[in-house]
């Protein structure tokens, strides 16, 4: 193995270890907390979610209403 490729393997390995140190040190929270937050977010925003709640034809811009009211 030439000196250059040996050096670059070393640099790659050093970078990998540095990255792993960073990822290992990240602050974590409990899954129970994360799950609770996700659940709360979904339930709190459910009423605003058109695909979830369904869109009445009168409010659906992609679907013209069947009858037209003339003023």
């Amino acid at each position, binding site marked *: 193995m030439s000196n250059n490729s*040996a050096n670059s*393997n*070393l640099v790659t*390995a*050093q970078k*990998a*270890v540095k*990255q*792993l*140190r*960073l*990822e*290992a040190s*990240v602050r*974590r*929270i*409990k*899954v*129970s*907390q*994360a*799950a*609770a*937050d*996700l*659940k709360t*977010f*979904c*339930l*709190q*925003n*459910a009423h*605003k*979610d*058109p*695909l*979830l709640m369904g*869109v009445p034809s009168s409010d*659906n*811009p*992609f*679907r013209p209403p069947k009858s037209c009211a003339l003023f």
Partner: protein
Amino acid sequence: MGEMEQLRKEAESLKDQIIVARKGFADTTLQEAVAGTAVVSRVQLKTRKTLRGHLAKIYAMHWGAGLTQCVSASQDGKLIVWDTLSTNKVNAIPLKSSWVMTCAYAPSGNLVACGGLDNMCSIYNLKGKDGNVKVMRELASHTGYLSCCRFVSDSEIITSSGDCTCILWDIETGTEKTIFAGHLGDCMSLGVAPDFKSFISGACDYTAKHWDIRDGNCTHTLSGHESDVNAIGFFPNGNGILTGSDDATCKLYDLRSDQELITYQDATIMCGVTSLAPSLSGRLLLAGYDDFNVNIWDALKAERVGVLAGHDNRVSCIGVSSDGMACCTGSWDSFLKIWN
């Protein structure tokens, strides 16, 4: 070499540390946490519009930040900006290279971008003075295909590439601001956080990575998939990451607990996931598959609650409009469909 061996041992030890640390915070599962929540009732969406005009496979689509315009890219060599309400083509932009794989709409509505096997990201100004849409910048330095691009603003865009890196570009100068290296396989997809401070990437090394846009660091590497991660997106709360893979599953990871929360899988689904998009509240996960269908999942309960069947070929891209009012699917059958 003594130092290589030392580094290898340290790397293994750190990987074990991460596994142990994650387990330490796994005091429950998402499944247990939502045991008392009912599954959503069956979701039946109908095709409201079919956007016809492309002459070949559609590879990508992206909604504009306004409520009704979107852009699509096809290997017929065209980028089309659509008014989805009228189904009219607002712009039909001929591309220099027809091998396009991705497209994006800037949040401002002023710019669109695309790229593919030309290894470049081309930026087009939709609001030029003379009304003609022209190439504004060609961002070239990736050494592999452009798989995805997403605007951070009118002056910055992030690209992901088959060269295993992502790049944050200064559109004005056409130069790279930051190179995000670390993936060990082609980067296939990226998503920008709702607060625009970070982004996520999915790659052929089976992982998803979370990156800080400003300092360039990869803060989390999330694994678990057993094949290429083709699709990725933030859960609307900004803390969850949704991924779709060739292993026929989608997964939900949480950034703050740094681990997988749940897998969306079914024994009857045996083909890869090509694309995904959450509904506005995140409760529904819409995912496009190689078998021409879109499956709709209850994201909390991990149960399939609906199917969008209407395309005659692979669903290659999917997006939910910014007000959550409609979902758009693009397919290799050359059509886009709007559903709600």
